[in-house]
């Protein structure tokens, strides 16, 4: 193994060794502040360890890991998300029970899984990353000792996620049976080589992988778990699930489908268009019926994953790949900022509550009079989710729309427009609820760390909504070295 390859593994090595150090600190000197500081240091050091290799991209270190601009961008997003969730969880967990240190270790482990996932170039690293991400996430979900909902959400997610992992694995086994290879790049250009029976098994395998990934991304026919898990899981963990977990899996799916050429399979592409349309419609329509902020956010995330699937479809059309990747990356960046901000507001609202999270729409009534700043932040988030101009969400949606138009996918675009129209309705409902007369006068404390998270995210939300070109340039630069 050469020095360069070792360098490419450096982020993973850094994070793993810091997790071990943190584990030892927890074993010998249990101290929540110390644990959280190690977490923050670990995330920052990992981010720093990416810099030495920026000039050498793309590097493939072992057949398992492929580091290119694409992986770099998504690693950055993952680390950003994990850092924000660390701060939120610190405030959320601080006053609950006694053993909170392991939560942060699990958070780092989950983050490690996500990092492996975004740079994975092989089914083995895919599965390992996915499970590292997933298994730590179930444990994080069930961590707080408040109420039964968290346990129930964790159990539900564990069972369904296990099933979907099994689907992905079986699909990979079928592809391996026909092609004899497990690396994504080696698999490029398959499905033109084999006989008819082989073609059938390949299609079966691809469909199973596709179904498994759709489940993890909570796209429409497989979305039923989403609202329950979002509602039951503690707010910071929901934020992690909605951003880091989904973002990493999306990055992997994009790499898997484009490099292996699975996207060229016509039935899959058709299935993807269908899934995108159903997700947009189902997510937006079902959100109208909800009175629970977390559930509304869950359905809205289903719809947002539907918009992302549009980028997938465009990536499958001739010549649309790079363009689609840029659009998807910006959209996901905006989605990260917005969703993290939304859940940080929910977290701040829920900290005082010791049984369940504060999620009923009624609890948010009068927020404008009780805590104007918090309400303003939440309003900015909701406007960004709805895609109103001057927010990052608008640029993201506009980007998706423009590639859709360029690829002449008119039917899909009709769904995007209709979905966004319905979306504005339920986002405005929350905003109107906040302007009503307050029910209680109980003061909402805003803890320091979460407060700063909200401030930073709001500023970037507006900044990149007004002046998005730095990020767009960065994405354009990084996507060149894909593959």
């Amino acid at each position, binding site marked *: *193994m050469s020095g360069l390859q070792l360098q490419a593994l450096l982020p993973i090595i850094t994070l*793993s060794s810091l997790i*071990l150090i943190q*584990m*030892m600190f*927890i*074993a*010998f*000197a*249990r101290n929540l502040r110390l644990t959280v500081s190690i977490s923050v240091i670990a995330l920052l050091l990992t981010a720093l360890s990416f810099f030495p290799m920026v000039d050498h991209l793309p590097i493939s270190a072992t057949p398992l890991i492929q580091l290119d601009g694409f992986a770099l961008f998504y690693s950055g997003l993952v680390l950003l998300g994990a850092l924000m969730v660390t701060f939120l969880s610190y405030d959320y967990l601080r006053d609950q029970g*006694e*053993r909170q240190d392991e939560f942060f270790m699990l958070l780092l482990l989950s983050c490690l899984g996500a990092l492996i996932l975004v740079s994975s170039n092989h089914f083995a690293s895919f599965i390992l990353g996915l499970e590292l991400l997933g298994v730590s996430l179930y444990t994080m979900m069930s961590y707080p000792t408040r109420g039964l909902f968290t346990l129930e959400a964790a159990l539900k997610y564990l069972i369904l996620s296990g099933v979907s992992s099994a689907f992905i694995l079986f699909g990979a086994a079928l592809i391996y049976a026909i092609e004899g290879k497990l690396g994504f790049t080696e698999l490029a250009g398959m499905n033109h080589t084999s006989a008819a029976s082989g073609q059938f098994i390949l299609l079966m395998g691809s469909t199973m992988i596709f179904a498994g990934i759709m489940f993890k991304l909570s796209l429409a026919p497989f979305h039923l778990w989403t609202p329950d898990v979002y509602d039951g899981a503690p707010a910071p963990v929901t934020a992690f699930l909605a951003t880091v977990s989904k973002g990493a899996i999306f990055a992997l799916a994009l790499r898997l489908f484009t490099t292996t050429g699975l996207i060229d399979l016509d039935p899959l592409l058709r299935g993807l268009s269908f899934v995108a349309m159903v997700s947009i419609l189902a997510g937006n329509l079902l959100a109208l019926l909800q009175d629970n902020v977390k559930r509304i956010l869950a359905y809205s995330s289903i719809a947002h994953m539907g918009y992302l699937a549009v980028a997938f479809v465009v990536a499958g059309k001739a010549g649309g790949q790079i363009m689609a990747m840029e659009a998807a990356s910006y959209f996901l960046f905006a989605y990260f900022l917005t969703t993290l901000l939304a859940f940080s507001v929910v977290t701040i609202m829920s900290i005082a509550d010791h049984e369940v999270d504060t999620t009923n729409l009624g609890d948010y009534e009068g927020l404008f009079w009780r805590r104007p700043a918090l309400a303003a932040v939440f309003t900015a988030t909701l406007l960004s989710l709805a895609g109103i101009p001057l927010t990052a969400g608008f640029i993201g949606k506009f980007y998706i729309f423009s590639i859709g138009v360029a690829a002449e996918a008119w039917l899909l675009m009709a769904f995007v427009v209709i979905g966004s129209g319905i979306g504005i309705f339920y986002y405005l409902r929350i905003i109107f609820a906040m302007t009503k007369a307050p029910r209680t006068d109980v003061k909402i404390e805003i803890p320091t760390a979460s407060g700063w998270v909200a401030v930073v995210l709001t500023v970037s939300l507006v900044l990149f909504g007004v002046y998005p070109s730095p990020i767009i340039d960065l994405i354009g630069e990084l996507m060149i070295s894909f593959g």
Partner: protein
Amino acid sequence: MTESPLWPLVVYFFAVIALVLIILGLSSLVGPRSTMQRATIEPFESGVVGIGSSQIPISVEFYLIAMFFVIFDLETVYIFAWAVAFFELGLFGYLAISVFILILVVALIYEWKSGALDWGVKKRVGLRE
């Protein structure tokens, strides 16, 4: 490869089924009919009378130990695979497995210190009061 005939297997299969049917049929025809009696539903019809339910609650520690067993048992799979290919892997393999075992040791120390291996009363090291 010589194709061995399939029919002996088929004959064997049906012979087994026939034998089972004959034994069951004969014993129900010839054997004594027992009516429901006082001791019929006892677990050991003419033995010691059982006391209490067999569904006794099992201590949670057993589950914890079972989980540790599952995890640590599987690590041997990897170490075994490395041992089989010891000479081919050379120094790099040795370093890799050392890292692997180091991680396991760290995990074991963690489990020990956090009191997961104690039986009965957990020591619960380092908890804030």
